[in-house]
């Protein structure tokens, strides 16, 4: 086989490959463009739905998703990549904070949480956003998976007064939070993360609300 035929064949296959690529990438790019708005809207909807579960929609009146401070890596919240804290305001006054938090020590790795803390420092609600806890054992931290639909485990965090926060530990560790026997690790991870988040919110409350929208927040001085 001579060099030239080899080259010509390479060129031919290359061209055909490119033709297919162009056509199908175009198809994808087109779909992407056509669906992007819809997808973003759907995602925002979803987020708002989740937020309303931890922070009643009636308790704030700003566009929550557009009012946030950005965080760099923040060990206090378990964030090693950074995240956001959304600020809820009612009639311009601080109504609460919504913290993206990570419990790094779940049974199967990190558990992404959102923790809502009211202006008075009490916890308003908690949701696990993503987790990989063992199905049927540790996944009760997610109310969708919790068998007890009437009063899911995570509901214990709805309304913990600021004064009760020192008791935000699982019972095994001497706190108030119940857990499922045989799956303490998951419960402990979530509980400790919530306590840390609430402490963080209390410590930085004023500075958080004072910060510019979208500003990079430096954390505890």
């Amino acid at each position: 086989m001579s060099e030239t035929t080899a080259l010509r064949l390479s060129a031919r296959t290359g061209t055909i490959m490119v033709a297919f690529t162009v056509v199908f990438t175009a198809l994808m790019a087109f779909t992407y463009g056509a669906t992007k708005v819809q997808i973003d809207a759907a995602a925002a909807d979803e987020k708002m739905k989740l937020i309303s579960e931890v922070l009643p929609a009636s308790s704030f009146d700003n566009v929550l998703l557009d009012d946030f401070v950005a965080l760099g890596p923040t060990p206090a919240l378990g964030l090693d990549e950074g995240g956001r804290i959304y600020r809820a305001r009612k009639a311009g006054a601080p109504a609460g904070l919504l913290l993206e938090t990570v419990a790094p020590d779940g049974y199967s790795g990190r558990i992404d949480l959102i923790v809502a803390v009211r202006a008075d420092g009490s916890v308003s609600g908690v949701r696990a956003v993503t987790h990989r806890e063992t199905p049927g054992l540790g996944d009760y931290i997610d109310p969708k998976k919790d068998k007890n639909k009437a009063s899911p485990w995570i509901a214990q965090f709805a309304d913990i007064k600021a004064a009760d926060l020192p008791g935000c530990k699982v019972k095994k560790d001497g706190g108030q939070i119940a857990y499922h026997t045989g799956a303490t690790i998951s419960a402990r991870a979530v509980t400790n993360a919530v306590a840390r988040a609430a402490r963080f919110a209390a410590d930085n409350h004023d500075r958080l609300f004072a910060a510019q929208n979208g500003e990079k927040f430096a954390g505890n001085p």
Partner: protein
Amino acid sequence: MINSPFVRKSASVQQVMLKVLLALVPGIAAYVWFFGAGILVQLAIASAAALAGEAAMLAIRGKPKALFLTDLSAIVTAWLIALTFPPIVPWWLTVTGTLLAVVVVKQLYGGLGQNPFNPAMAAFCLMIVAYPALMSQWPAAGQLDFGTQLKLIFGGLRDVDAITGATPLDALRTALRGATNPDSPFHGLRASQLQDGPAFGMMGGKGGEWVAFGYLVGGLWLIQQRIITWHIPAAFCGALFVVSGMMWGLHPDGFASPLFHLASGGAMIGAFFILTDPVSGATTARGKLLFAAGAAVLTFVIRAFGAYPDGVAFATLLMNILVPIIDMKTQAPVFGHKKD
């Protein structure tokens, strides 16, 4: 058609298994003495389940029931299940575990002699994965009377935390891990202090160490009877001692002592009765040493760093996976091909 040899030694599988059962008796006796007669109930439940499972599968497969039910191998499996499961697990858990061992892990492979995995240990792993809570509840010596044990076994669900104290292996491990965690009540404690608790005896757990001694006695008898060879027990105990001793020597406050490792959990029954299972274990001399030493290292690693309280069962299964290759690679040189 019968061909030579026309004479045979009088030996049978039944005899072998019977001796293994007899060798378990000292350990069982100590078990009953320290922890109560509940274990006897468990032994009975497991034996019945094993025979039932085996009989059902034999019937389905059209194999001679009388022959295989009396070979006693199912009973050995059943007893080892009963002895390695906590003595107060509910009856259905023992039954499920035993049935899985006999039906899935043994009979699906064709029955006696053909299973690549140790049935009893596979059952242990399946059950501890499925019911980590129930499978981690070991009562302390003398803590429960027979009536309570019966109630626990047959009484359905219960609040387990209220009855069981921390078991030595589990407690020490939780504590050792807690010692480095500022959130934990154990923060700052040292291994030697932790081992002062009422649950601990001279070497291992209170009572438990005598059970282990019973297994040791029975195991030595098995060696004397030439049912098992010294390789596996020696390599297992030796390697476990060395590995845990090394870590302990480097870090006496972070790890339990080698004697504690040998005397606790499944170490002794594992060394003499479980890893020695001829069917699922290595068969060549060098292979046995490798197999048991590997199991010891894995046991230590799982105990010290893993998620489960004891590592013997998982280590056994993991080494079972390696057996075909170990056996293949450790063939002794045959006659005329030795290097000496």
